[in-house]
């Protein structure tokens, strides 16, 4: 699979590393120049510096042939816009978002994102048996 990851923070870094280890082709997009340089020392040439919300930049990432795009920045609005551009402009089949505000899970789905993952929801689900309310 060819997977594009938007956001090179802790989540984006480990996610990209694991995807590469599993044999997938990956492009990791990071906006911050210094962070992008560091990521490149760890992951090599899969790192591209740029804004994943910009159509013109996304066009340089080979996005037309991407099987999936995963947006994992710390800003929900940035994740949403990157995925909407990927979906509506480049027809990427699978769009997956990390949402930082759990109420955005439903919002993102309404606004066209295929999968929205909230760490809060995952952690709550890990509390087994569920806490009585």
């Amino acid at each position, binding site marked *: 699979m060819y997977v594009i990851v938007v956001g090179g923070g802790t989540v984006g870094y480990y996610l990209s590393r694991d995807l590469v280890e599993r044999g997938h082709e990956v492009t990791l997009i990071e906006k911050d120049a210094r962070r992008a340089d560091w990521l490149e020392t760890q992951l090599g040439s899969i790192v591209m510096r740029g804004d994943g919300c910009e159509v013109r930049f996304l066009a340089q990432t080979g996005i037309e042939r991407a099987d999936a795009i995963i947006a994992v920045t710390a800003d929900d609005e940035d994740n*949403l816009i990157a995925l909407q551009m990927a979906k509506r402009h480049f027809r990427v089949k699978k769009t997956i978002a990390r949402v930082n505000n759990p109420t955005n899970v439903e919002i993102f789905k309404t606004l066209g994102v295929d999968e929205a993952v909230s760490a809060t929801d995952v952690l709550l689900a890990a509390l087994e048996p569920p806490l009585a309310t």
Partner: protein
Amino acid sequence: MVIVDRDPNAFSRASTRGVLTREFKGDQVVGNGTDVDVLRRAGIERADGFVAVTEGDNRNIMASQIAKDVYKVPHVVARIYDPERADAYEKLGLHTICPTIDGARHIEKVLLERESR
């Protein structure tokens, strides 16, 4: 009329400058305008109009889409500085205002008027 701003000081700054005077009958809600709970507190469910004019293009786009597509607010306008992004979302049916393009056009108009004199 309700104003939402995530910075509580923004309201007092506005009144100090005389922008928000005592004649302003609207409400003020402190919080992030892309947060559904905050928007509900501002009464988005019964809003006839919604305007997103923060400094962040993406925040404005997201807030406007929540208003338009989730809460079906009839009149929604988003300010988007980046011309490409404004164009892309205008095509997707969002009513956008791009001050960058509008400003450039205005400057051009003034310049050409002067020249033709």
